[in-house]
């Protein structure tokens, strides 16, 4: 019985947190700090911690990958971690040996950037998939792809006959879109007779579940950063000759959020462990972690703005950047209500 991060994991977290504190600027480079990502990949193996070493990964487990994503979500690091990790995960799980060997090493080394052309599971619905395979090539436009404009490698669902198959594509046009999230911007991606390599038609639910956990980790980091900032401000901000954190209106709201944050932390830890052990429990743990982390992140980000007062709503302050990231994370891979519906049906309600 050892349900806690070990000393090595704690130390790894501390070192990446300290690195990000020094180097990550949410406002850098219009949402894409390529150099930072490069260093995260080479110095921390950020993109591939749980991929096998033979593919250039770190040979760790999703627990460690979740830990990286949590710290990126805490720092609001403007790097294409989501796109790359999601694309790599798809290839890792569903790619044949050749595809894995070709695609993964440069992705995990940070030499190439990946993106997954999927926003929610509805994008796997044959009636809605916008890309169609025609022989060996793909054609169609995906309107919203996180990190798509900086990606070299795209994993995209495409209709093959009446089935939806994920493909790896490297020839595409991407146009950055105005994005709610300024630290994880999105692009529209157009494929025109693009050569595509199909992945296996494996367990897409399982893939989505692992992605849910990783996204939950990102949201958990965002939530923790927001509550931390609110608490720190409540300590120093004085009104009526008292720090505002001594007022119950502030103190109790922070306490309620701390309870939710603690729940999200436990849920992400458990779900990442379930992913690491490839346990059947992942099927429930993943949607639980996703909605608990999402709801907590949105609530913490909103509370942080509120507790900071007017200053928290200025462009200069980071509070709205967190709120934007929390909102998009909550929508990605399906809303919290959708997660609960997935949970209900998996539990046989």
């Amino acid at each position, binding site marked *: 019985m050892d349900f806690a991060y070990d000393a090595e994991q704690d130390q790894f977290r501390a070192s990446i947190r300290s690195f990000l504190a020094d180097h990550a600027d949410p406002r850098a480079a219009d949402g894409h700090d390529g150099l930072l990502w490069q260093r995260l990949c080479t110095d921390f193996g950020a993109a591939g911690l749980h991929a096998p070493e033979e593919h250039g990964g770190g040979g760790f487990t999703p627990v460690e990958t979740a830990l990286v994503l949590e710290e990126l979500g805490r720092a609001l690091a403007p790097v294409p971690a989501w796109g790359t990790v999601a694309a790599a995960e798809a290839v890792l799980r569903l790619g044949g040996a050749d595809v894995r060997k070709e695609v993964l090493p440069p992705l995990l080394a940070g030499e190439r950037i990946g993106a997954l052309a999927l926003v929610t599971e509805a994008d796997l619905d044959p009636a809605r998939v916008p890309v169609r395979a025609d022989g060996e090539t793909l054609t169609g436009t995906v309107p919203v792809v996180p990190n798509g404009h900086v990606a070299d490698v795209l994993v995209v669902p495409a209709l093959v006959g009446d089935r939806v198959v994920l493909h790896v594509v490297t020839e595409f046009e991407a146009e950055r879109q105005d994005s*709610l999230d300024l630290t994880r911007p999105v692009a529209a991606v157009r494929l025109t007779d693009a050569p595509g390599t199909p992945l296996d038609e494996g367990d897409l639910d399982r893939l989505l579940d692992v992605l849910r956990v990783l996204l939950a980790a990102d949201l958990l980091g965002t939530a923790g950063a927001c509550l931390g900032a609110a608490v720190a401000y409540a300590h120093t901000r004085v009104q009526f000759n008292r720090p505002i954190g001594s007022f119950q209106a502030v103190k109790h709201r922070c306490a309620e959020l701390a309870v939710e944050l603690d729940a999200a932390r436990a849920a992400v830890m458990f779900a990442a462990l379930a992913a690491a052990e490839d346990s059947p429990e992942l099927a429930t743990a993943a949607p639980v972690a996703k909605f608990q982390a999402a709801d907590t992140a949105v609530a913490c980000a909103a509370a942080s703005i509120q507790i900071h007062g007017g200053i928290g709503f200025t462009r200069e302050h980071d509070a709205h950047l967190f709120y934007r990231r929390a909102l998009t994370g909550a929508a990605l891979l399906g809303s919290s209500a959708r997660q609960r519906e997935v949970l209900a049906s998996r539990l046989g309600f």
Partner: protein
Amino acid sequence: MDITYPPDAERFRARIRTFLAENLPAGWAGVGALPPDERAEFATRWRATLAENGLVAVSWPKEYGGAGLTDVEQVVLAEELARAGAPSGGENDGFGIGMLGNTLIQLGTEEQKSYFLPRILSGEHRWCQGYSEPDAGSDLAGLRTRAVLDGDEWVIDGQKIWTSAGHTANWIFVLARTDPAAPKHKGITFLLVPMEQPGVEVRPIVNAAGHSLFNEVFFTGARTRADLVVGGVGGGWRTAMTLLGFERGGQVTTQAIEFARDLDRLVELARDRGLTSDPRIRDELAWCAARVQVMRYRGLRGLTALLQGRTPGADGAISKLVWSEYFQRYTELAAEILGPELLAPTGPGSGEVLRVAEVGTPNSSRAWVDELLYARAGTIYAGSSQVQRTIIGEQLLGLPREPRLDGGPFAEIRPGKGA
């Protein structure tokens, strides 16, 4: 009980409708339908039109050049302007006419009235409000901007923040501390200060939605005449409270009109996405519709009180809390309806508005994202939700105050930012 308007008021309404039909541009669809960069220009023209028709300063007596409208006429005018999506005046009129003008009429000297009122009316003087400071937000009386008499002039040093329409103003009314040895609510003086002088600097604050609705105003040895005090030296807190009482009296019924209109837009959004058949969305939409109905009922009750000359008590606090908390829940519902569309909002935005989107605002995902972001500010400005709950708890329910730690001389209270 009777919720119809008196016949006179309905006749006035008909007149206003005619006026609007005749004076608004052809095909008028509301300010929200104008491209954002044309809105300021339209507002200027429209203010002139209102002035020509005697429809500015509606609450001032005619002797001061006001429209001298009755209470119910003011309400009817506000309703019709809200329905038509036309501004009720220029950007600074809320401060100049609604607040300062009415305050001067009640508390100003004859000289102040005869000098300032016509210039406010003409638009020559455009006012803004210098109240909040970086360390004096919820605790407004904790303000530190100082004013000292130097001969026949006040010399002002300090900083104000959250000054709406500061960049378009040329005068500012300022709460300044003139006696640091007095308790914090005493020793504050209400000063009228010209802004076009070297000691006053205005810097815009860009908000999270990318717009600039507020400003910082810095005073560095700024000067104003010794007699430009309203309510006496040291009497500024009372003047400020008087002035707040003039806020939005005529707007008692417009909140529900605005939110009802925008809810129609949200229902349309949901219908367009096929989500009005989703029981969870239906439930939330119905809750929103009910809350807007409640705003309407409260408006009718408030109007009755206004016409009967009853003071609303903590009603303003309830009203603020209701709309601002509703605004969040309602825009969060919009976010849920948009779902993944949130990630890349498209179409035109809602423009620089503080509350619900203007009439005519396109039903675009970007406009909803703007509203979602603005809703976060709604529970902060003009008295945070925490402050409103305290007011309701203490003034309406009579619950005891917190023990005060700031009762002594202001100078002995510790500074706003600690450790």
